[in-house]
């Protein structure tokens, strides 16, 4: 079992003319492989900063991030090995793929960079990965603009899985997809997590899918963790006022139809 530890991480940005902004304030959590943590919060709460720190696009101002006991290295073979073990699926399926290159190129690159399989087997591995995300092999020669949003996101997932990581950071993977296909992509992620034993950090602003998909939920507000616990505990028995507000703000079909039958009139 591998561990990803986020240990008392604080991240401060200095913006010209606006002083300093504390994007993260003493955030700590632990992600085990085989587990899913749902990271919930509104825009600007610091969710994306956590994702950026995990993928090395930002560094913490203080605190440490450890993978399997060692802190994230800055360069060298340690960095390469870290990169191979933690991959990210981005939010915008339209922007996370290079419009110029084919699907095959996108999935090939991590295979070649991390030398996951010997050179002769790369094509076969690409086909295998496409099959795992339930896309036909013929899609490999297509370019991103010829695919739908859901297909693109599956390609992004295949790309993330190529290096056989232990951890996956999914930054709002379904927010920009049609509601009708969200469940399909999320179920795919859940199946893959189970089959590969991945540790998944599922970042979202949507409470409902967080509860459906995660073992544990962390609620983030203005860079601080305000609540943390098992999914059911946090959703059904929220302690912190912010969490309670979040839950109250989610539309609940049961309540709506109940109110309809109460007044007796049709919806306007």
């Amino acid at each position, binding site marked *: 079992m591998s561990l990803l530890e986020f240990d008392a991480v604080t991240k401060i940005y200095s913006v010209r003319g606006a002083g300093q902004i504390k994007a993260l304030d003493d955030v700590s959590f632990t992600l085990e492989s085989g587990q899913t943590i749902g990271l919930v919060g509104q825009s600007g709460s610091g969710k994306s900063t956590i994702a950026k720190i995990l993928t090395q696009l930002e560094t913490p101002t203080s605190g440490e991030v450890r993978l399997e006991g060692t802190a994230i290295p800055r360069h060298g073979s340690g960095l390469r090995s870290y990169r191979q073990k933690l991959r990210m699926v981005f939010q915008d399926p339209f922007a996370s793929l290079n419009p110029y290159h084919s699907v095959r190129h996108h999935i090939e690159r991590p295979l070649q960079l991390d030398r996951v399989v010997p050179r002769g087997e790369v094509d076969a591995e690409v086909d295998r990965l496409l099959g795992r995300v339930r896309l036909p092999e013929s*899609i490999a020669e297509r370019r991103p603009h010829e695919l*739908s949003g859901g297909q693109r996101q599956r390609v992004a997932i295949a790309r993330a899985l190529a290096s056989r990581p232990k951890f996956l950071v999914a930054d709002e993977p379904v927010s920009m997809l049609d509601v009708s296909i969200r469940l399909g992509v999320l179920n795919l992620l859940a199946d893959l997590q189970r089959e590969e034993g991945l540790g998944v950090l599922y970042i979202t602003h949507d409470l409902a899918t967080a509860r459906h998909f995660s073992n544990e939920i962390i609620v983030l507000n203005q860079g601080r963790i305000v609540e943390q616990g098992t999914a059911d505990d946090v959703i059904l028995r929220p302690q912190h006022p912010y969490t309670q507000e979040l839950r109250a703000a989610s539309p609940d079909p049961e309540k709506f139809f109940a109110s309809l039958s109460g007044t007796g009139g049709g919806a306007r």
Partner: protein
Amino acid sequence: MTAPLTIVTPPTARSRFGSAFAMFRNRKSITGLAILGFFVLVAIFADVLAPFSPTQLDPGARFEPPSATHWLGTTHIGEDVLSQVIFGTRGVIVVGFLAAIIATLIAIVVGVISGYLTGWRSEGLSALTNVFLVIPGLPLIIIVASMFEDPPLWVIAAVLGLIGWAWGARVLRAQTMSLRNRDFIQAARANGEPLRRIIAVEMLPNLMALIAASFVGTVTAAILGLTTLSYIGVIPVTTYNWGTILNWASAQGAFRQNQWWWYLPPGLCIAAIGVALSLINFGIDEYVNPRLRSAGERARAMKKKGLNINDAVTAVRTTPTKES
């Protein structure tokens, strides 16, 4: 339950090749490329196409208007204007393209690197680019060219290229900076792609349209620069290009004496090449910014239905239409 697999037909090899040059596939670009191609062919086959040698004198026929033997008439000492124009095409094409190649290469290196890096290196390269933009080019070339006795074509092309790279570099820098923060570049960085591959393989293909437009624009500028400098006389008149022909024509008073066959064709040729290059650039513009292409079409389509695209309120039809 998984979503049903969509049937996807794999693309043929031909369509993949075609999509790489999609920016050239509209009517405007094709027309422009055709005209340009015509001039390139004339330049290559000048020896075969010209009826006379450009310096061949025909003392009996001076200042003659167009005739059967001399389709474009003759100069003050009996040289055939048509042959001179044909041979002049060579200098124009060679210098134009060479200067543009030099300028575009520099623009790509400076622009993309300064766009991708951050901090003082990026700002420094940008300041360098802006300096070259502000310092006026033509006076500088005039002064530099006057220092040479008889500069070969490639020197002229090199100087023009060194003056003209700054605009393309600036445009490429802006576009690279915006590309740098796109998710797919972040994904490549997170995958551990080395820097040279990120720039060469991931970014450069997305910049192709801009690079093409910048190249075409530089060819135009180089050709105009060359002909202007030749006309002024800064570039010695031993080389043949349309500008030098106009220099002689002007010196011999052709403009005052209405010898239109001497001064009209070279100028029209310059304009024709300029139009061709502009058409190509229009085509690329429309490819990059599809609104340019469709805006006019949409407005015309609406006008046919009796609507004005600028109306704030959508008009309501009271009579049923046959069309869907």
